[in-house]
């Protein structure tokens, strides 16, 4: 069992489920993004999802777009991502997965990227614009290094594609709660519950729901049927307005939603 899968399983055994927190590297600075990620883990986040800034983030809504654009304007480099993973994993025990669009990884070299991430102590990669159909190189590199590969599953996915996503993923499957992009929403779509039920039928034992989750109440609701709840934009907003302290408070508040 991978570190990510184990952390999610442990959270489900001890509490209502896992809280996965997203923040982009390099926003507002590399140092502050590291402190914020550490603060998430120290305040109840079970798995850290670190986003690598990319020029054309088609899955992201305005809050994350703005943050990653700032990081790029400040000169973000992929090495900053590896450095951040190394420092965060040396300070907290929560596993760290990267979220990255595919082109930066492809340009860096899939094997080289996987090796560096592994050496830095990273646990895997979530690939929002890489479906398993196009992932031959990445599947080989992740098999070789033992990194987790997290593919997305959507409400629109056919049953056959859900089986494929479950079989190709390790660590967890990222269940997209709604047909849309990242960003806080007042309601988590009912489609999420149906999707997770379909993923169970497809054989998933580790399904986490993301997109639109921003309150402890939503976390609690999602964890009644899913193994984990993924929260992103609200952490980014907290970091923009209130710095690392606000991220710590947000994490602590969201974590109350994981108590059964």
């Amino acid at each position, binding site marked *: 069992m991978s570190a990510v899968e184990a952390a999610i399983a442990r959270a489900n055994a001890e509490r209502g489920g896992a809280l996965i927190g997203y923040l982009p590297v390099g926003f507002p600075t590399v140092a502050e993004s590291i402190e914020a990620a550490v603060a998430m883990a120290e305040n109840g986040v079970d798995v850290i999802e670190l986003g690598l800034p990319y020029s054309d983030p088609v899955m992201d809504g305005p809050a994350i*777009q703005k943050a990653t654009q700032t990081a790029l304007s400040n000169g973000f480099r992929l090495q900053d991502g590896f450095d951040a993973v190394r420092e965060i994993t040396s300070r907290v025990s929560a596993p760290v997965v990267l979220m990255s669009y595919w082109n930066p990884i492809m340009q860096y070299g899939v094997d080289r990227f996987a090796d560096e991430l592994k050496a830095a102590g990273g646990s895997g990669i979530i690939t929002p614009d890489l479906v398993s159909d196009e992932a031959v190189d990445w599947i080989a590199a992740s098999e070789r290094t033992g990194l987790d590969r997290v593919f997305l599953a*959507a409400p629109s996915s056919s049953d056959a594609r859900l089986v494929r996503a479950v079989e190709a993923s390790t660590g967890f499957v990222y269940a997209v709660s709604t*047909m849309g992009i990242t960003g806080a929403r007042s309601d988590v779509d009912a489609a999420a519950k149906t999707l997770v039920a379909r993923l169970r039928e497809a054989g998933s034992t580790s399904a986490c729901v993301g997109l639109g989750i921003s309150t402890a109440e939503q976390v609690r609701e999602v964890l009644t049927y899913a193994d984990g709840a993924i929260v992103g934009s609200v952490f980014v907003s907290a970091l923009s307005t209130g710095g690392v302290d606000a991220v710590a408070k947000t994490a602590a508040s969201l974590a109350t939603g994981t108590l059964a």
Partner: protein
Amino acid sequence: MLKDELGPYFGEFGGRFVPESLIAALDELDAAYNEAKNDPEFAAELAELHASYTGRPSIITEVPRFAEHAGGARIILKREDLNHTGSHKINNVLGQALLARRLGKTRLIAETGAGQHGVATATAAALFGMSCVVYMGEVDTERQALNVARMRLLGAEVIPVTAGSRTLKDAINEGLRDWVANVEDSHYLMGTVAGPHPFPVMVRDFHRVIGDEARKQVLELTGALPTAVAACVGGGSNAMGIFHAFLDDTDVALYGYEAAGEGHLTERHAATLTKGRPGVLHGARSYMLQDDEGQTVESHSISAGLDYPGVGPEHSWLKDIGRANYEPITDAEAMEALRLLSRTEGIIPAIESAHALAGAIKLGKQLGPESVILVNLSGRGDKDMETAAEYFELIDSAEANKAGE
């Protein structure tokens, strides 16, 4: 046969690098397209629209006075500028709008650079009674204000995109985001031969009519196939449309002209095939302009329609197998060709198409007076009058001020 390539891959290029949420919609579109392709009723419907709405077949025009400046080569223009809405874009739009109607979609999403594709999509939406939203980079809404007005007059909602470089690339990102959220009732009407499968193949097929007609017309006029075919390349739809009929005519040279902006040796250009390298952008693997870490680099061109850091995957493949040649044309060369065609032949081309004309001038000098060059005149220049007026200082400032009061 090179003509028979059906995707999703062209050599190592193409594919589907998109969020999982879109895969079902792409599968649905692919299936609908394959069904329609073999349905005589669909073909008849499209042919009827071509004939009675667009004004096809478009004519060819030989331009001897212009050709005097091109080494004496015979130059023949394929007049896509005479289509309804003023460019080749309508060919693809009508095809995809018919497909969208078959799929029961009631809303069209489009991106646009120069506005030609947006205008064509807004036109089809009006014709078919669909709603329409067009994403356009804020920079482009400024330099193509007239087309913004046209789209709004046609009933479309035009949304200026303020993210990133505020041009075509960012408009495509925004269109894809909209599609992810509204895929149930909306069709993303991609305007070029880029994007995830089946767009590159489907858009090419809807533009094949350009080359099919032109090949026959040139044969009738000259008794032989042309020596070379020239077209401008941004995403590459008009070029694929005219190239396709000639792909297996090995004696016919194919030339794609990219926007070199201030020069392909400067940092301000859009010469993707000349200066880029393979990567993934907007759902497909293809050549693209990027930095050493795979971040997309902003492109620059006086022509909004060519101001794009990517290119269709089939062009990348044609370049790599050596079937087509791609060369850069600067802003200055294109503007000079625009003025030359206007002055010598009374035809004002779009700035995009002027890149192909500038290329033909160079090519004619290279190939000599025995050669025949077919140029795709993909659009007319009405939309570019403001840019041209400023570039050539055609309106003196006193009058301009008065007009502005």
